[in-house]
């Protein structure tokens, strides 16, 4: 399907208002969902909204496919004074990712939610989910620095609530949510201090306008301080290595579908915001930036890749293991970004998209295991390949993708990362990627070994059995698992997205790599 086909399908009103609707619709729907009495109805509202947003994201992606920019002025107040929603090749893929994951997770949700959450809270649960969904979309879509902060907090506040809802299963969800709240708020406040500095120096909050005004201020100390505050604040939100401590527990104890949704989208939206500031607002003329990329971002990326992977290799709780692996994977993305070249940025962006697919698949599979068997420990996985073969097979695809085996998306993004590292002359980075991949093989291998090489637990003299998982849950899981394979074999779509995004952010659309280079 070409972009023109997508636009031909869309009604004209949607084409004109998709930029505003995509963030406003879930916010309004969240209010409605909170008021309806039945959880089932709230779920339908949420799903319908997510589908609408996916349609908007599809239309917007088609509109910006040629490198165009869609600007939507809220309330008719023209930018730079009014709040502008600005969709361009850099954030359209993020919108597509968030909305597609939202639809898949919601399709999967009802059985899992019934199992894990008190019936009386279902409507509120879906309402909070919609608020989180709206917040993430807003972070990706907005072109205004302060609006970005507000949406960051909208998504974070609802995330704290959603994580805490895991308390029905394990009370540690409460302390996990509390710690996340403290650290998340510190991160957001650092971000807003940085925005304040930048505003004081440039007098504008519009990101495009700010980029123009910041250029002649490259040596201004206030701008440098603002930049540092913004990077640290967003670094907390993306779980950059030493600032990641909120993440493992939050992911381990949140309800299953929330973990799957957050792992695939939340850190991604914040990561996009980081890229927008690093490259959209400040360019390489800004002498502070290359120094920061090499000495801070690259160093932390490497530490994260190695240490978080090691921690994952010794984790006992399977969700905690995958959460620590997420911290390591953020390191891969940051390493690509730290190279500061268009190939490196594109590789990091590609890994962002691909990581959402693999972690989404893995956590959705875990949700099914939780529903049927209630397992949390890796040692519970013994013989699971025989007890639940269909779900476990999808888990294996996700796991191999995480390690980077061909023909999965994980392989593609690692090849591009390695190529970018060698092109930049960073042989050590290539070595680190290889070491981290081996560690990934170790921690994933423990699970696969237990699942396939060990006999299933005996119950009443016969191997344990589990009822077949509901189709509504296996469907979305396999969609993601097959996406891991499909885009691993034909990577042209995600690489084209990543390439356009990096080209757009660096203001150099021609410099690209691989099959995505051809328009």
């Amino acid at each position, binding site marked *: 399907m070409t972009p023109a086909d997508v636009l031909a399908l869309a009604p004209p009103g949607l084409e004109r208002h998709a930029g505003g609707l995509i963030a406003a619709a879930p916010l309004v729907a969240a209010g409605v969902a909170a008021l309806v009495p039945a959880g089932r109805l709230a779920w339908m509202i949420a799903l319908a909204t997510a589908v609408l947003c996916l349609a908007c994201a599809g239309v917007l992606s088609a509109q910006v496919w040629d490198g165009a920019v869609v600007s939507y002025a809220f309330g008719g107040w023209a930018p730079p*004074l009014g709040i502008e929603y600005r969709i361009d090749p850099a954030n359209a893929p993020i919108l597509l990712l968030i909305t597609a994951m939202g639809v898949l997770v919601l399709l999967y949700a009802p059985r899992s939610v019934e199992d894990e959450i008190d019936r009386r809270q279902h409507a509120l649960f879906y309402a909070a989910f919609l608020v989180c969904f709206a917040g993430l979309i807003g972070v990706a879509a907005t072109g205004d620095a*302060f609006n970005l*902060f*507000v949406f960051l*907090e909208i998504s974070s*506040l609802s995330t*704290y*609530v959603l994580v*805490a809802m895991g*308390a029905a299963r*394990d*009370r*540690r969800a*409460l*302390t996990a*949510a*509390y710690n996340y*709240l*403290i650290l998340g*708020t*510190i991160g*957001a*406040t650092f971000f*807003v*201090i940085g925005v*304040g500095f930048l*505003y*004081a*120096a*440039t*007098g*504008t*909050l519009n990101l495009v306008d700010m980029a123009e005004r910041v250029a002649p201020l490259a040596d201004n100390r206030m701008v440098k301080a603002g930049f540092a505050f913004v990077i640290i604040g967003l670094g907390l939100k993306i779980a950059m290595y030493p600032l990641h401590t909120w993440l493992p*527990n939050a992911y*381990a104890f949140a309800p299953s579908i929330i973990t799957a949704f957050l792992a695939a989208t939340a850190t991604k939206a914040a990561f996009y915001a980081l890229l927008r500031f690093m490259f959209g607002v400040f360019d390489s003329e800004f002498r502070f930036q290359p120094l920061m990329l090499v000495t801070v971002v690259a160093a932390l990326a490497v530490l994260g890749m190695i240490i978080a992977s090691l921690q994952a290799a010794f*984790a*006992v*709780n399977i969700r*905690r293991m995958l959460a620590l692996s997420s911290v390591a994977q953020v390191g891969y993305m940051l390493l690509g970004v730290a190279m500061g070249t268009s190939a490196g940025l594109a590789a990091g962006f590609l890994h962002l998209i691909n990581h959402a697919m693999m972690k989404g698949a893995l956590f959705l599979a875990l949700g099914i295991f939780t529903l049927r068997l209630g397992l*949390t*420990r890796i040692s519970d996985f013994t013989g699971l390949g025989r007890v639940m073969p269909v779900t476990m097979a999808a888990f294996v695809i996700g796991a191999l993708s995480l390690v980077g085996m061909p023909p999965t998306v994980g392989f593609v993004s690692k090849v591009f990362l390695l190529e970018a590292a060698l092109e930049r002359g960073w042989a050590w980075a290539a070595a680190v990627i290889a070491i981290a991949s081996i560690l990934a093989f170790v921690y994933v291998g423990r699970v696969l070994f237990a699942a396939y090489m060990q006999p299933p637990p005996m119950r009443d003299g016969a191997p344990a059995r589990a009822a077949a998982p509901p189709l509504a849950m296996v469907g979305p899981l396999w969609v993601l698992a097959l996406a891991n394979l499909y885009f691993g074999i034909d990577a042209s779509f995600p690489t084209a997205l990543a390439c356009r995004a990096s080209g757009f952010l660096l203001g150099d659309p021609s410099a690209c790599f691989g099959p995505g280079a051809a328009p």
Partner: protein
Amino acid sequence: MAAFIAGKSYYLAFVILMMLGLYVVFASGNMVKRLVGLSVFQTSVFLFYVALGKISGGQPPILVDDAHGGSHGGGHDAESHAAPALRGAAEADEAGRAADAAHGAAHAAEAVIYSNPLPHVLILTAIVVGVATLAVGLALVVRIREAYGSIEDEDVEQAENMMLANASDPS
């Protein structure tokens, strides 16, 4: 030097409050106190923004009737109003002082200096966000107290470690 510091007293207060708040967040073992520290930390940022918008000699940003009328009337509408609003605070501060001097020298060339309303409006939003954060945080503390019987970090940690030691559900 003293004048410099006095001129920047708002910013000094911002930094002191910010550090106090952060210190309480990290040093206190009581979950409610940590939330209080977090609030102080956030409030310090509100002060910073509000201080940014203040211009010495600036009026509240409300259109004033222009006695000189005519050609000067256009000067007070959104266009020229936006210009000082868009400038950085430090710069605008200077502009404010310069305009004050001009005010004394030549009454005819009087231009109304407005304080920048934008940071104040932003902070209204940020206050709402801060209140929501505090509310969610306190609600979580209530639930933690119900689940663990304490709001002290140490006790809660001990309870979690006991769970681990019992090996019922290690993490």
